[in-house]
């Protein structure tokens, strides 16, 4: 269509809501019928402001982006970055931008968001004063703090203020928070919640001043911040100040062109987000909704974006569009400085005649309050410290919960409260607030990826993902994957008893109907490979994981006996048993790294990782290491990783046993043992536990008379302290018990199930495991021990074995047709005197979904390859 015949839609502001609005236009086909022009004040396209603080935990500005360049291009949207609109002429229907563009519009949409409010205190404009709203703010704070400050203060103890405080702490600054109200987060939590929050945050080193205002920012001769004076007379010695004392809707454009704005700011709109001028809409934080509120949250803004797009789609009949915005829930769930905080519904108990049910435990910093009506309807609540029940409670709001309210706030165990499961939720309960998705809509899908793809639920703040997981069908089908109806445990038994060492045979004889004769899949191949490797000696299979058909089953890491990194290079981790290493061996590692130009890092597992090796370099690196007496550390395998140690009795004044020797013995005994998931261990020389043994799958702690064995520990995402399995064991007794425990786990666990999850899942839990491996209740122990003995005698180093076989070695090339050629995409740039992957090279994406476009050119220039 000729563009001149298209209507022009101008969007002012490209923030989160603006971007969502563009997506809503595209979904309704409006980008095809309209010329869409966006003016953005910020220098970068829309990004995830909600996650701004994650910049300080490593998210780059690019990773924060919510705008896909492909999207803008595909829909022909014109985006003017760094060019704000300065004037709207409603009579002429034009906008004029700072760069001087004047553009006629048919429809104008304001999505200008809000600006931080800076209270008019003396010194507020001094060097070192900041606000906290944009990526540019964050970059400026970081740069200034690094160069000029060791302490900082945040003015405002609300949600955003605490986020900013977290950011300052993340930068290593001593951090003060000054809040005028008598408690933190006055808008979200009540007094009890504020008190619980205060206690916990103070425990994390934050200095909080409540019930006092900021009187003056003190400056030095150069006009830079040197401190601040509070209204109670206190002076704080700080080098940087961040104002976070609330926000104000950015409604100036609307005011200037005569549109109505609310008493406390915000462009007045109707429930279709139209202003008084039918050609002008306002959405997001700059708009005042029909309930008289300006919403400072992203979810209501998204709903407004939908309402406006629907009205525009309806055109002249816009009065008939039925996607309306009349107000929203102010529910929030956050993790502020590591503390979980949630509030939902009528959190302050504003409704007539409502009652509170509260539970407070100041030791653990937990506070929970529910607001219920006289009839028992759940109206809202506040949760601090433990927000486990947030998803369920929020979705139950507005209904009478199936169990009494007090049971919903008591911790499990106190008062025998049955945890209220997601089953209790009605079908129309809103599970994902960001995208307004109900339980029914979620349950129309089968898997989480499907839910995200079809409903967008879980793709906003992410706080609902856990609940969604609980709502999805556990499907009743416990099969390993689409190819096998058996569980991993059942397959283990089939392989063991029928001595089937071939994947194809297993698939063709025991696979699901439609899968027989097929390829298998990326789930069952490595799982079966692992089962065969664990049982190799017992079923007469070759224990070498690259033998025959097994080579085709291994995940890429096992296949290359190294760990794949993001740019296609590999890392190499030699075994350093117990973390003990001689100076000579350290020097060899250093020499190898220098010779091959590898990045070196001490790992969290007490050993050294060498990164950046190309496939064809791996054998040469191993050869050097094997020569010096190293072997594979199996960092790539679902296998034993490390047995960490503390220095123990030999040197430490407290040590009561030789923990280093025991750690080395255990690591050498179980090295190469393949399991359903990785296995980690540690040995501590006394109860002070410097080796952190209780965070391991099997952990050993010395006692005056022997060793205590703990099992089922885990670090990682769901940490769990290991449980005591047996006490005061002697060396032989300890090893025998670990042999049995590990083999029982390997036999009965699911694929990718760590010992911690396995122990939680199996019937009878720890007691059952103890019955089996200590008291031999199933008469299995002799067999379990024999299996382990087989493993120990058959162990061979995979690197050495590969080096000895020229045919195998031939696989270690980047290109089958050019064995000497390095992969041109594996390139590095320098950082801190070492290398790192050249990421710009990786982000040069080939055009999406262009299967036949084979001639795009990659610009390899400017990439430092080594």
């Amino acid at each position, binding site marked *: 269509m000729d563009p001149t015949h298209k209507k022009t839609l101008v969007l002012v502001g490209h923030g989160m809501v603006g971007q969502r609005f563009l997506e809503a236009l595209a979904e309704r086909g409006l980008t095809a019928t309209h010329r869409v022009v966006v003016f953005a004040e910020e220098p970068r396209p829309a990004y995830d402001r909600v996650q701004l603080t994650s910049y300080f935990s490593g998210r780059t500005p690019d990773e924060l982006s919510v705008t896909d360049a492909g999207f803008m291009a595909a829909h022909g949207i014109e985006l003017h970055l760094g060019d704000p609109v300065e004037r709207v002429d409603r009579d002429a229907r034009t906008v004029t931008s700072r760069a001087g563009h004047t553009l006629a519009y048919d429809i104008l949409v304001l999505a200008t968001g809000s600006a931080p409010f800076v209270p008019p205190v003396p010194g507020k404009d001094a060097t070192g004063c900041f606000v906290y709203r944009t990526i540019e703010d964050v970059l400026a704070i970081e740069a200034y703090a690094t160069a000029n400050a060791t302490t900082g203060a945040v003015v405002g103890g609300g949600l955003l203020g605490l986020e900013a405080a977290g950011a300052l702490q993340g930068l290593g600054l001593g951090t003060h928070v000054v809040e005028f109200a008598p408690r933190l987060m006055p808008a979200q939590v009540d007094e009890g919640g504020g008190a619980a929050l205060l206690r916990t945050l103070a425990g994390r080193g934050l200095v909080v001043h409540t019930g006092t205002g900021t009187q003056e920012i003190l400056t030095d001769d150069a006009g830079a911040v040197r401190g601040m004076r509070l209204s109670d007379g206190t002076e704080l010695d700080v080098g940087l100040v961040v104002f976070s004392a609330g926000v104000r809707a950015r409604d100036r454009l609307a005011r200037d062109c005569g549109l109505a704005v609310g008493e406390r700011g915000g462009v007045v709109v109707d429930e279709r987000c139209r202003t008084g001028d039918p050609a002008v809409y306002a959405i997001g934080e700059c708009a005042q909704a029909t309930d008289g509120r300006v919403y400072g949250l992203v979810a209501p803004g998204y709903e407004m974006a939908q309402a406006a797009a629907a009205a525009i789609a309806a055109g002249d009949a816009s009065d008939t569009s039925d996607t309306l915005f009349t107000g929203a829930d102010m529910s929030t769930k956050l993790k502020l400085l590591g503390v979980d905080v949630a509030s939902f519904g009528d959190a302050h108990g504003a409704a007539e005649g409502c009652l509170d049910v509260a539970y407070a435990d100041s030791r653990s910093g937990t506070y929970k309050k529910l607001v219920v009506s006289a009839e028992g309807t759940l109206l809202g609540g506040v949760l601090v410290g433990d927000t486990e029940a947030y998803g369920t409670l929020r979705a139950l709001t507005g209904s009478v919960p199936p169990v009494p309210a007090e049971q919903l706030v008591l911790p499990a165990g106190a008062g025998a409260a049955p945890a209220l499961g997601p089953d209790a939720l009605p079908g129309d309960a809103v599970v994902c607030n960001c995208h307004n998705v109900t339980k029914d809509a979620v349950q129309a899908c089968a898997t989480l990826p499907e839910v995200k793809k079809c409903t967008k639920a879980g793709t906003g703040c992410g706080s609902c993902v856990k609940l969604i997981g609980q709502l999805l069908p556990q499907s009743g089908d416990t099969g390993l994957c689409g190819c096998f109806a058996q569980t991993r445990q059942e397959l283990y038994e089939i392989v063991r008893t029928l001595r089937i060492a071939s994947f194809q045979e297993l698939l063709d004889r025991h696979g699901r109907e439609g899968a027989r004769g097929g*390829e298998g899949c990326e789930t069952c191949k490595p799982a079966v490979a692992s089962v065969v490797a664990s049982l190799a000696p017992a079923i007469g299979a070759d224990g070498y994981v690259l033998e025959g058909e097994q080579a085709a089953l291994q995940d890429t890491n096992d296949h290359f006996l190294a760990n794949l990194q993001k740019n296609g290079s590999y890392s190499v981790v030699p075994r350093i048993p117990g973390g003990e290493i001689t100076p000579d061996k350290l020097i060899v590692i250093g020499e190898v790294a220098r010779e091959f130009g590898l990045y070196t890092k001490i790992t969290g597992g007490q050993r050294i990782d060498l990164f950046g090796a190309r496939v064809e370099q791996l054998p040469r690196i191993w050869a050097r290491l094997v020569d010096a007496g190293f072997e594979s550390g199996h960092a790539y395998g679902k296998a034993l990783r490390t047995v960490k140690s503390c220095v123990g009795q030999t040197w430490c004044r407290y040590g009561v046993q030789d923990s280093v020797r025991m750690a080395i013995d255990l690591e050498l005994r179980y090295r190469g043992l393949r399991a359903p998931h990785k296995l980690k261990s540690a040995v501590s020389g006394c109860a002070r536990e410097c080796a952190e043994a209780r965070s391991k799958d099997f952990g050993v702690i010395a006692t005056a008379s022997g060793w205590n064995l703990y099992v089922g520990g885990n670090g990682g995402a769901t940490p769990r302290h290991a449980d005591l399995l047996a006490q005061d064991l002697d060396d032989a007794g300890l090893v025998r018990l670990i042999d049995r425990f590990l083999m029982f786990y390997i036999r009965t666990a699911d694929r990718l199930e760590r010992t911690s999850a396995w122990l939680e899942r199996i019937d009878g839990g720890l007691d059952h495991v103890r019955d089996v491996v200590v008291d031999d209740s199933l008469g299995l122990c002799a067999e379990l021990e024999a299996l382990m003995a087989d493993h120990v005698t058959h162990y061979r180093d995979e690197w050495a074995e590969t080096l000895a076989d020229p045919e195998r070695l031939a696989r270690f090339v980047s290109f*089958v047709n050019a064995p000497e050629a390095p992969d041109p995409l594996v390139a590095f740039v320098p950082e801190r005197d070492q290398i790192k992957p050249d990421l710009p090279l990786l982000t040069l994406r080939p055009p999406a979904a262009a299967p036949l476009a084979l001639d795009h050119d990659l610009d390899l220039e400017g990439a430092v390859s080594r």
Partner: protein
Amino acid sequence: MTTATATATAAPAAPTTDAPAAASVQLRLDGTWLTVCAADRLTPGRGVAVLLPDGRRQVALFLDRGRRLYAIDNRDPFSGAAVLARGLIGSADGRPFVASPLLKQRFDLASGRCLDDDDAGVAVYEVRVSP
């Protein structure tokens, strides 16, 4: 420098029952067949990478257990790294796919389409065992 513009068809390449050991694998580029390696260099169920004559572009070549060959672009569009040849292959509803070894997205080997994201895909090449 030559820019290879292959006329790729979305056909799962000539099925070849039991290729003789001396046979070689060929890729179709610019209307001509480029010999890349001996057929016995391939392990059924796994892939290898091929560097094209321009010295930059790469093709991932796979052999399935039925000894059928597939060739797709080696570059994983999600990470940008050239690693697809190192993924595991599998079949779903009788169609073969490879799962990227980095973030596990699956690509249909015959069409190059990504099974986990409608907006992504990779190029496919015609491949055969030399006549």
